[in-house]
């Protein structure tokens, strides 16, 4: 399997806080990679370095390299809008825009210059279908997205990310605010989507990582402790700290 993203010796400081310590990690194409670890371990911070979301954080200093398809995402020539089109993101709390379902999905393509209504109709329909939401909302595309359930809103956010045709989808605890059925729907969706996209997900739910991720990385106090195939991490972890964390011996 090809590496989609290659991170080498990534160090990140928030002011005096050393939040990522020499993290090196390859993210495989068309696979799901999960980042696990206790709160504050750096997993979300690392996820956000992949599409430069940390650029918005004051006093944030990043060293090392992150290559996407062999190109350095921190190169000064990189247009972050284009980068974030390629590397989409879905957050913990579903955050639909206060507008219609249709306009939520069409928002990104419009920003990227698509004005043709027929083209937008096609993108909206395809994105909603890809996010397994179309059948539930096809008769109310022009009603407010805020009227959807939490699970539907999160699938809408995934559809919104898909609408700009990304290569990579980053998800930061996308199901932590959802009920078990909505969670399973999102998990099934991610398993379907990995054939076309590269997916990286931060999760506190260890069963979720073991259910859907092909690869899992365990972070602890800013360090990436262990990375490997998920079945290895959850059956025979190499590092005692990984074993202690996933078996709940950490206290």
């Amino acid at each position, binding site marked *: 399997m090809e590496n989609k993203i290659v991170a080498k010796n990534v160090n990140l400081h928030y002011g005096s806080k050393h939040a990522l310590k020499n993290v090196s990690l390859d993210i495989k194409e068309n696979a799901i990679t999960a980042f696990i670890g206790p709160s504050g371990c750096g997993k979300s911070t690392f996820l956000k370095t992949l599409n430069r979301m940390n650029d918005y954080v004051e006093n944030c200093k990043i060293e090392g390299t992150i290559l996407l398809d062999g190109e350095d995402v921190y190169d000064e020539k990189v247009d972050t809008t284009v980068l974030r089109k390629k590397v989409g993101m879905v957050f913990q709390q579903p955050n639909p825009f206060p507008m219609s379902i249709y306009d939520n999905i069409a928002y990104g393509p419009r920003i990227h210059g698509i004005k043709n209504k027929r083209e937008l109709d096609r993108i909206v329909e395809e994105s909603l279908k890809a996010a397994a939401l179309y059948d539930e909302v096809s008769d109310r595309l022009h009603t407010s997205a805020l009227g959807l359930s939490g699970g539907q809103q999160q699938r809408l956010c995934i559809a919104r990310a898909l609408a700009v045709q990304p290569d990579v989808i980053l998800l930061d605890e996308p199901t932590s605010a959802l009920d078990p059925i909505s969670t399973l729907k999102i998990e099934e969706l991610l398993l379907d989507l990995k054939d076309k996209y590269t997916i990286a997900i931060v999760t506190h739910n260890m*069963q979720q990582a073991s259910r859907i991720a092909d690869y899992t990385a365990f972070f602890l106090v800013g360090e990436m402790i262990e990375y490997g195939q998920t*079945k290895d991490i959850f*059956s*025979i972890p190499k590092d005692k700290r990984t074993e202690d964390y*996933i*078996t*709940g011996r950490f206290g």
Partner: protein
Amino acid sequence: MLRSQFHIELNNMHVELDKMCHLVIEAIDRCVEAFQNHDLELAQEIIRNDKAINDVERSVESKCLSLILKQQPVASDLRDVSTALKVVTDLERIGDQSADIAELILEMDEKDSYLMIEHIPSMARVAIEMVTSALSAFHEHDIQKANEVKKHDREMDQLFEEVKLELVQIVKENKDHVDLAIQFLMIAKYFERIGDHVVNICEWVEFNQTGKVNDTRLI
């Protein structure tokens, strides 16, 4: 430590498992003793105690399933619980076979001595040694020791072949000994099967540490 309830339950399961190991070692020890001394009372006690072994097996199984249901164990905890679930089956079979031998002892005459068939005492000795060493390897998580124990199974198989030859000879010499020969053959077969179950237990010692059985990855 987090998940203290989980560790209490895991520990409770291990207490039951240790009890089962102890009962099985006791059963095979007594079985050989009853056979050597034609001790019918002891043979009956072995049969009675087999129920206790079966009850502990159910208790371990129930505790393992409850741990899986409530705690979804992973890594060493998952290997630990699955090993226990597998090992109790072989322990229970060893208990059954000891009871089966005890039942045959009850059917035999005192004159049909333990020493009549030269290689049966050797099979009994190897069986006790294998069970005791395997359970010690299991408790100590000692794969090397488990592999050593597995080698004794060949010795057990060879002894079984020897017993068969001896019995054929006995029947050839006196056809009236056919029933007796069948009883001895069954006893020998039970010892040989005990060896096979011990080999299984040794394989789970490897799994518990490595996730592999005979170098094949299971999880």
